[in-house]
């Protein structure tokens, strides 16, 4: 069985002229099939860096990262994944439908199959009404929805979402939650980073908490969070504990 995400001793050092930032300090994680995993941490913890390594945008200083058993640097590893970036920006001069057609053609989809898939996804993200409008006229929430639709165009086995509910109103967040629930029902693996801890608590089988480039906790929410405590409280305590350790308190 191929594990959707497998990361071993991953380190990323970002060097600038004056300093070296240890964005990731030897993290290891594994995301199994058909799991919904929340990847949480404060700003600058290294969540997006981890996602960028998984997608081959950033090279690891040491360690390894694999998607379905393939090294992340090989394009074949990306055949079975869908990705929604944080702050999704896309070709503003295209319409929503054209964007989905373009994304589908990059997966060698064409003809009626592609047309039907685009229509199905527009329906899924409630964007049929604006499908033939230019993306330049979309609101932030609409951009997020169409970005999510393009991430799902190839019916991926693994969906990586970076802050999928960022900038969405409560209804938009509900829609995203429903989409993640639908993906779970269809047996997909979802790996998403978020600051919305209530969302994570509601939809995730497992959470991974990353602080200052290190994983401080991982496992099912029910096992991690003490009875009577919320994930938010557990998260704040974990971050404080780590920060205190960093400053030597």
């Amino acid at each position, binding site marked *: 069985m191929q594990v959707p995400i497998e990361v071993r001793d991953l380190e990323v050092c970002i060097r600038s002229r004056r300093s070296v930032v240890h964005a990731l300090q030897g993290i290891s994680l594994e995301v199994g099939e058909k799991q919904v995993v929340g990847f949480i941490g404060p700003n600058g913890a290294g969540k997006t860096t981890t996602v960028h390594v998984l*997608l*081959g*945008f950033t*090279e690891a200083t040491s360690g390894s990262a694999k998607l379905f058993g393939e090294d992340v640097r090989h394009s074949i590893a*990306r055949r079975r994944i869908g990705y929604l970036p944080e702050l999704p920006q896309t070709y503003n001069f295209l319409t929503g439908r054209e964007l989905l057609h373009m994304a589908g*053609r*990059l*997966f060698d989809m064409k003809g009626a199959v592609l047309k039907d898939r685009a229509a199905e996804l527009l329906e899924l993200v409630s964007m049929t009404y604006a499908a033939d409008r230019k993306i330049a006229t979309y609101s932030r929430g609409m951009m997020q929805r169409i970005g999510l639709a393009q*991430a799902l165009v190839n019916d991926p086995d693994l969906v990586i979402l970076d802050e999928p509910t960022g900038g969405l109103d409560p209804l938009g967040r509900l829609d995203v939650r429903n989409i993640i629930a639908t993906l779970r029902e269809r047996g997909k693996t979802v790996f998403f980073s978020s600051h919305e801890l209530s969302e994570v608590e509601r939809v995730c089988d497992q959470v991974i908490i990353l602080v200052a480039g290190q994983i401080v906790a991982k496992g099912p929410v029910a096992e991690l969070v003490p009875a009577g405590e919320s994930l938010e409280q557990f998260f704040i305590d974990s971050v404080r504990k780590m920060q205190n350790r960093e400053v030597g308190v």
Partner: protein
Amino acid sequence: MNRILTIANIVWVDLLRRKDVYVLLILLGVMLFGLLSINIFGLGGAARYVLDVGLLLTWICSIILAVTMAGRQLPTEESRGTIYPLLAKPIRRWELLVGKWLGAWSSVAASTVVFYVLLLVVYRARGGVIDYNTLVQAILLHLAALGMVCALLLAISTRLTYGAAATVGFVLVVGSFLLVPRIPWFIAADPGANTIGLRILYYLLPHFELFDMRQRLVHQWSDISGAVSWGIIAIILVYGMVMTAIFLLLAWLGYRTKHFKRGGAV
């Protein structure tokens, strides 16, 4: 191939939905029709004068379009953040580069052909006669030169921002046009001096002057010395293709291991 054509198609749609090409077309049209109505030094009546200035404007407009189109492809993808969902798809970096080059070159080439058609309409309206064999050769060489410009700009823009890439691109293209044909004169004028640097420049920079048939078209040299043989045209086209391939290879070397981070490349 499907992925390369998809990327090229995005470049085309971008061009058609932007105003750059229409502005250049209108500007060229206004200048050409302006040439018909003015009569500087009594040259207004000479059709050849219209063709001479028109061809110069066509070259300038096409180079501006090629430099700006090809130079902005990669940096804009990075600054807009559209590179992330794109590279998260199973597309190889060389496919992205070839798709970008194909899209930029084919769209600039199509615009250039439209520029030529417009020029021809104005020239014919002035009563000019043209040798169509030479015209076809001139257009073919012009389009090949634009292929080189697009590939050069892609190579430069793998590591620079759009503004920097366009500036360096303009300097290199215009510099090559003006300087390279004169290098043998410089060497001949002072053979005792250390000319190694000049010789390196001569062989390193692209020879755009080989692709410029404006004088032949304007002065109809084909009537005097016979048309340029298609064999020579083929050799120049092969040279253009080799240079384009070299620039694309350089672009790939600069881009294949490039890493990205939020807010720009690392």
